[in-house]
């Protein structure tokens, strides 16, 4: 059966930066500064918008972490991942993360990771289905929560 909808990923530009802002503001509990949004324009393929039937409804934004010493690995950190709620369960989030995993391969980056709130069972399961492994627990990571929330690090190693 041919799907009657389309999902397409596209680049972030100064002209559609407002879309990233809108999606993150509506979906995520944390807010990000103007500087963070401006910086999003500089991370190249590590930021992507997702379009469902030509309407932008999801976005992923990562950063490249190059460690000070050669002994540690370069990592990609998923800073925000959001899909508007009516558009979930279409595999859009998966598509966005898989794009990042591909980029990691291209850039010879060995690890992609993110933080997930310990109480968010759905998100933890979701990342695990994508091949991420639960790592250490960071106590009080979400400082703005009352009481402060803990987070797990979820990691995926890239071959």
């Amino acid at each position, binding site marked *: 059966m041919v799907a009657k*909808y389309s999902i397409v990923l596209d680049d972030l530009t100064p002209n559609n930066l407002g879309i990233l802002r809108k999606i993150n503001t509506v979906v995520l509990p944390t807010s990000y500064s103007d500087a963070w949004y401006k910086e999003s324009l500089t991370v190249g393929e590590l930021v992507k918008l997702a379009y469902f*039937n030509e*309407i932008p409804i999801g976005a992923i934004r990562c950063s490249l972490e190059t460690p000070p010493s050669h002994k540690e690995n370069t990592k990609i950190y998923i800073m925000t991942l959001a899909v508007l709620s*009516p*558009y979930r369960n279409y595999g859009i989030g998966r598509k966005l993360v898989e794009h990042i995993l591909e980029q990691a391969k291209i850039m010879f980056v060995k690890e992609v990771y993110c933080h997930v709130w310990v109480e968010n069972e759905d998100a933890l399961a979701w990342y695990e289905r994508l091949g991420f492994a639960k790592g250490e627990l960071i106590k009080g990571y979400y400082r703005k929560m009352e009481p402060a929330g803990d987070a797990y690090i979820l990691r995926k190693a890239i071959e």
Partner: protein
Amino acid sequence: MSTQIPKSRYLPPKEASNFRSILKLYEQREYKKALKLADGILKKYPEHGETLAMKGLMLCFQKKKEEGHELIKKGLRCDLTSFICWHVYGLFYRTEHNYEEAVKCYTHALKYDPENTNILRDLGLLQFQMRNYEGAVNSRKTILQQRPNVRQNWTALAAGYYMLKNYTMAESILTKYEESLKQPLPKEDTENSELILYKNVIIYESGDVKRALEHLDSISDKVLDKVSVLEYRAKYLLELGRNTEAIKVFRLLLNRNPDYTKYYYGLERALAIEDDIEKKKELYKNLAEKYTRSDPAKRIPLDFLQGADFKVACKDYIINYLERGVPSAFVNVKPLYKDADKAKIIGEVVTEFFCTLTPTKGAIISSDESGPTTYLWTIYFLALHHSKIGDHDKALELIDMAIQHTPTLVEAHMVKAKVLKSKGDLLAASDSMNAARELDLQDRFLNTKAAKYLMRAGKSEEAIAVVSLFTVNDAKGKGVSDLHEMQAIWFLIEQAEMYLKLGKVGLALKRFQAVKKVFEDWWNVQFDFHQYATRRGTMRAYTDLLKWEDELFCEPAYLRAAEGAIKTYLSLYDTPKSVRVAAELDGLSEEERKKALKKAKRERAKENKHAESAKIGDDDDPFGRQLENTNTPLEDAEAFWKPIVNSTAYDQSLSWGQEIEKRKAVAAANNTSNDKS
């Protein structure tokens, strides 16, 4: 009759040859070289009228218009019987778009050199510009007698006869030239192709449809414009009642382009089923099956169907678009809302459909997989529906649901803005439109919409800042002068109306005048086409242009600007400044009066300080004060009104212009009664 050259015109051989060079260099636009030669002659013969005139003309082209004008006048005074001087003066007036004076000069020039082809040709162009077709025919007849080997001259004369509706002469002129050709021209000769078709149109418009059809059949393989051949053929066959053949041609046309509604209506006429709803239903059903992507095949039935049939058809039409996520679904059916029953049915149909949808993926009753976007576009449609039938609160409720569902949908914010505007909340409307704009900064349409909404809310500076994101800006980063140059009349009119609301009469008048100037430019710019189109032979398009120009000053945009300007000037006339100022100060105590005057003085001083920054180019009246303080408001109003009345599309029902006549009559009556006393 003396054929001696008058003393003021005489030049010895060397200077005479130089003068002839000046004329040649002028034609080649080598003004610098020509001016050098001119100065050489003038050193020895400072009163040589023709040289003075030529120098003056060339200075005009070098942006030294005032100096040039003076020299031309001087040259003419020195040599009043020189056709060159008169011709030059005529050219000057022509560049000033003062066609009336230009014609007078050319007529003078012809007195002294009646067979001068250049002058005759220029005169012919001017006569077309002034719509003096009789004069044009005379000028062009003379030219044709002098130069019959240039096809353009035949075309020009035929055009003159055509505009006089003398189709017999027009046709015979074109035929005479065709017969003079020793060999037929190749099909690729576009001039020839166009002129042959033009002749066909002339035959048709003379009323002889039968002969037009015969002529068309004889030339159909000799012309390049195949679509026109088919369209004319269909039209002629229909008018001659040869329906069976007409049907075939319309079907051919539909096959070429199944999206053109004109062909569908033509086919209906040819089948003689325009009044037979059942047969039309069958026809469009077949056409829709054949041309699956054609919109008219499905849309046209919505016009003639009623009741239950209409419900079925519109359900199919609209829901197809909603499922495909086509934003223009509503706009396509909007004309149907003139029929209140149909509007109701449309609302029912889409609301029923809406109830079968869920906002997200999950249990969807229809097999449509596009769940969330179908839901979104359906709410969007319903919001527009309720706005159209006047239920703005319901519309707002629905569009807010859409925004909740998908806040990144630009169109949803735009509709919210529109609904808020209809409700009268212009400030909130402009905020919504700006929210839409910020989602896609590269969309210029959104930018202009946001600017318009800001102006409607009276936010002048913000509007300019927004619109300047897309314009070529001046030193202060503002794009207003660029918008003047780009003839962005939408902007000029919105600014004018905003300034009126803000009480800034001078600036409003300035913008209204700017709009008037744009339309005058659009009238003047046709001048080049009288020659160009005739040379290229594209006479059908050219005559359409003339018709468009004749109706130009009844374009809605001009009427809107004219109404604003005329009403403003009339109110200035009715309450002169002294009365207005007195009214403002009336009823105030002595102290309040002093305060008010002081405040006005302060504001004026502040404005004057900003005058430099508000200037556009070398504008000497940045706030339009001179316009506002006009001593001739009635004449100023009339200047807007006259071109409307002279337009061929003038509609007598425009009452606000007649207010001018009323006041003129009163003024005249007062004057005569004053004279008597």
